[in-house]
């Protein structure tokens, strides 16, 4: 199995293109199109007990123009810290980042002028209405988008005269995305844009993010919802304990898994789970207390025919068959040995 996409040591990569920012996938990588470059980035925080916490541990990657790039990982993996260093809000301990060719540290004003930022759970002034907040924030930039247009994008036109605190949670999230667009930025950073939203509002939000992306803006987001990453992102960096452990398109990450499907079924006559280890393409097999067999298989087309054959030969009957395609959760489990959620 090829594990080329697994960046166990992120900076030790084939440098066939002679560029330190070579990320993961030689096919997608194109140096002329990178809008964000992260180079050997490390961030350490002193802890109260005198230890140091390494929030970001020597990571490198590049983000291409026009894509939706997702940093996927559990809470505390280092997603927000990475984002805030790129945005110029935090200083790196080591390494450097660049946005549109401007250094996030040395040319921070130029970076800030060209990006839009939505912070995780930030709020705005209580006593300004939406239109006024957009005008106020617009005044901080040389180039300003029209507040009415911004409200149209996030479907809040009729709330223009409302105060921010009068909005629902989902509306506030949408509004903070609108604020991130006040300077008509080339790149938009969204830090957990759907955290705390109900499933419907989350799907609604995905539409807005796609809409923004379709206007030619590069979108960089963080999330700990693998479904979100899978649906929304062109490419995903999986981040855990401060390291990028995989970076590719969702499809590639999944198809690169040895087990691309999970097969589950019941049997008329119970047998031991080990029975199936001999069947072609079965990588792992187990049985739960309710008599449900679960097999991790490389491909359904490889393993299904011999399984049916086995049942016929042994006078058994297979019931309630379910084949579920592997998802990013399986990728994360495979890479880290733990699940994404908590």
């Amino acid at each position, binding site marked *: 199995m090829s594990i080329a996409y697994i960046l166990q040591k992120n900076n030790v990569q084939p440098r066939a293109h002679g560029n330190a920012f070579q990320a993961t996938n030689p096919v997608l990588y194109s140096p002329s199109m990178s809008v964000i470059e992260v180079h050997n980035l490390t961030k350490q*925080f002193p802890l109260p007990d005198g230890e140091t916490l390494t929030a970001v541990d020597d990571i490198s990657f590049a983000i291409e123009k026009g894509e939706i790039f997702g940093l996927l990982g559990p809470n505390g993996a280092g997603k927000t810290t990475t984002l805030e260093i790129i*945005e110029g*809000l935090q200083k790196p301990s080591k390494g450097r980042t660049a946005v549109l060719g401007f250094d996030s540290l040395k040319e921070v*004003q130029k970076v*800030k*002028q060209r990006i839009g*930022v939505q*912070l995780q*759970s*930030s*709020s*705005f*002034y*209580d*006593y*300004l209405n939406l239109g006024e907040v957009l005008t106020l*924030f617009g005044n*901080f*930039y040389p180039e300003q988008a029209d507040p009415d247009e911004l409200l149209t994008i996030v479907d809040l036109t009729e709330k223009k005269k409302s105060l921010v605190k009068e909005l629902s949670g989902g509306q506030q999230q949408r509004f903070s995305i609108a*604020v991130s667009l006040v*300077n008509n930025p080339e790149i938009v950073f969204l830090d957990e844009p759907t955290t705390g939203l109900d499933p419907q509002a989350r799907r609604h939000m995905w539409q807005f993010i796609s809409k923004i992306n379709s206007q030619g803006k590069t979108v960089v987001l963080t999330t700990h919802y693998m479904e979100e990453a899978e649906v929304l992102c062109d490419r995903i960096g999986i981040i855990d304990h401060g390291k990028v452990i995989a970076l590719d398109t969702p499809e590639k990450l999944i198809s690169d898994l040895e087990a691309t499907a999970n097969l589950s079924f019941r049997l008329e006559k119970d047998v031991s789970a080990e029975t199936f280890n001999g069947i072609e393409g079965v990588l792992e097999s187990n049985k739960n207390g309710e008599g449900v067999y679960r097999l991790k298989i490389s491909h359904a087309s490889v393993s299904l025919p011999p399984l049916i054959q086995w049942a016929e030969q042994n006078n058994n009957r297979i019931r309630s068959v379910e084949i579920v395609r592997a998802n990013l959760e399986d990728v994360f489990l495979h890479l880290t040995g733990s699940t994404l959620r908590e």
Partner: protein
Amino acid sequence: MLFRDKQALFWSLAFPLLFLVIFGLFNFDAPTNFSIAIIDEAQSEQSEQLKFQMLDLEIFTETEIASREEALETLKDGDLDGIITIPASYGQFEGVEGAAPEPSVFSVTLDETNQQSAIIVSVLNQFLNELNLQIASAPRLFTIETEGVQGQEVKYLDFLMPGVLGMAIMFSAIIGIAVGITRYRERKILKRLMATPVKVQSFLMAEVGSYLFLSFMQIALILGVGRIFFGIQVYGSYFYLILVTLVGTIVFLNIGFFIAGMSKTVNTAEAMSNAFTTPMMFLSGVFFSPDMLPGWMERIVDFLPLTSLLKVLRGISINGSPLTDFPYQFALLGGWIVVSFVLAWKTFRMDRA
């Protein structure tokens, strides 16, 4: 933002006025009056005459009470300030020739918890001395004439108003900045601003500007209400008064930023602001002069910014002094501006984890 929160704005303007109104209701300047019961044990013509003379002073008002027991009861209830007993021996000394007579002993019964009642004793004492002198026909050799150095009558409210002025700007600047900025930080508004190209200095200057404007409104309101409703006299320049108050505002704003830098939560900011402002309000002499403090304490209190500010404000308002009369106070205020600015600069952060 400051002016959008209309409730908060109203209270920061109304709060100092409240002090002015409350203290305006107390009539500190009117002559004091005590209600007393006079128990006449002598029951003579002379004692009756003495009683009239006593009440003639217009400092005592007699309450007619039948018995000593009833009088004591009324005194305990607080409806009476004191009981004066004229001894039975009063008026009988005339019969004794040659030798000095035994003094007649007047007794005064007081409620010790009534602070002002001690004045009754000194008034009575003076009254009896006077009486002694008259009866002994001794020549009056010494006398006192009082004269105010200010050349004008200063009422308590005239003294209070500059105090309220200083207190008002201290409270609104320190608490406003400390709590306001900490709240912005806690709610990540500061961080959001940091994500824009706006400069930290521009944001802070805008905050300072709006608080200076608020101070100006407070000054105008306090001076206006004081003048119109309470007839408070300002003998000096209004312009100096405003100027000096704004200088004080800058000191307090710096202290506010310092507290905002020190505190991680709004609750801490509130507690720290109170720890700075409340002792200063009492020690620096908003309501009464700090001269009553023990000497060492007074010297410490002299260093507080509000003390200097109030001295200058009172000087201008009450005496009409020019600014050049206060080099020490201005040096101290200048020092405070520098020190508090450095402290604020060292501790203040836009974001804090």
